[in-house]
């Protein structure tokens, strides 16, 4: 049986979103997959902001926007917690045994515009 879809909220009641485009800079030849990166981001954010803090950010690493070749991806969060999310990215310096750093490419309010300019 098909599950009933929730009625869409009014624009004024919806959460305002922000999209953060980033690039992972790593040692030459290293490629990371989505799940590795997702785990690293979640662990660091939970450590730094705590469970309650993360719940306020509505953070989500978008799976279809992660490109393992260019190592570029997009993070979604709400407009009130952009600084917390970006600062947390700065605290990730290792992914497994590899040293990494994040370059913030762009910040946008719509997924369309960030995809066009990436």
């Amino acid at each position, binding site marked *: 049986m098909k599950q009933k879809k929730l009625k869409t909220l009014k624009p004024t009641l919806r959460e305002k979103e922000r999209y953060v485009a980033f690039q992972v*800079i790593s040692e030459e030849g290293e490629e990371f997959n989505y799940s590795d990166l997702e785990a690293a981001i979640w662990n660091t954010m939970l*450590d*730094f902001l705590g469970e309650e803090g993360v719940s306020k950010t509505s953070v989500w690493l978008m799976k279809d926007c992660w490109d393992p070749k260019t190592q570029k991806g997009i993070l979604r969060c709400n407009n009130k917690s*952009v*600084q*917390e999310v*970006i*600062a947390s*990215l*700065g*605290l990730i*310096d290792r992914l497994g045994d590899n*040293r*990494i*750093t*994040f*370059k*913030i490419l762009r*910040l946008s309010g719509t997924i369309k515009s960030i995809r066009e300019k990436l």
Partner: protein
Amino acid sequence: MNFYDFHVHSEFSEGESTIEEIANRAKLLGYKGICFTTYLDDKNKIKKTKEIVSKLSKQIGIEIFIGFEARNMSELDKLIRFRREYDVLLVKGSDLLLNRKAVETKEVDILTHPEYNRRDSGFNHVMAQLATENNVAIEINFREILNSSKNTRANIMHKIKTNVEICKKYKVPVIICSGSVTHWQLKDPKILISMGCLLGLELKEAKKTISEIPENIIKMIKERQDEKWIRPGVKVV
């Protein structure tokens, strides 16, 4: 907007990465200039650093400055004596007397992490007034936060927040630096701005800490290296 990082250690001081690696990474992350910080140990090392820096600066297309970090009173006195020969004078915070001496000295540009290895924040309202008078910037060191975790990180962030609050009240210039010892610890300017916001600065103020305040220091460097300059506040007209 031009971004600067004024506290970076290379292999010539306590760092691990070469000057070239760090300069390339800084360029990639979008910095306009960086300052390599060394200690007053060996004068031959300093000459070598200067040679490499002047070559690389043109090659990579990034402004590179040389700074000295004084670790104690005697080093600070020595460094003040030949102040015109290098660009930036930093004082390694932690000792209360040294912190006080740093904010009292006009030749000093930056007091780095005054709360380092201390139970208190190492900075108070009296020092804040002196820092404003003498135009000494107080540093927020990102490496301190990056290299700590759990309760240590929470304590460090609390002390920095206290210092930021005092600085805001007394209009002391605040500067955010990565304090990196490898090129992997060099962070994107937007990350430093965000951390500044989390530590109690407004977005505008946080942007100033890595653009306008370093630019003011660069202005002072150029003034100081001018032939007409004699000492702080005195020059030939």
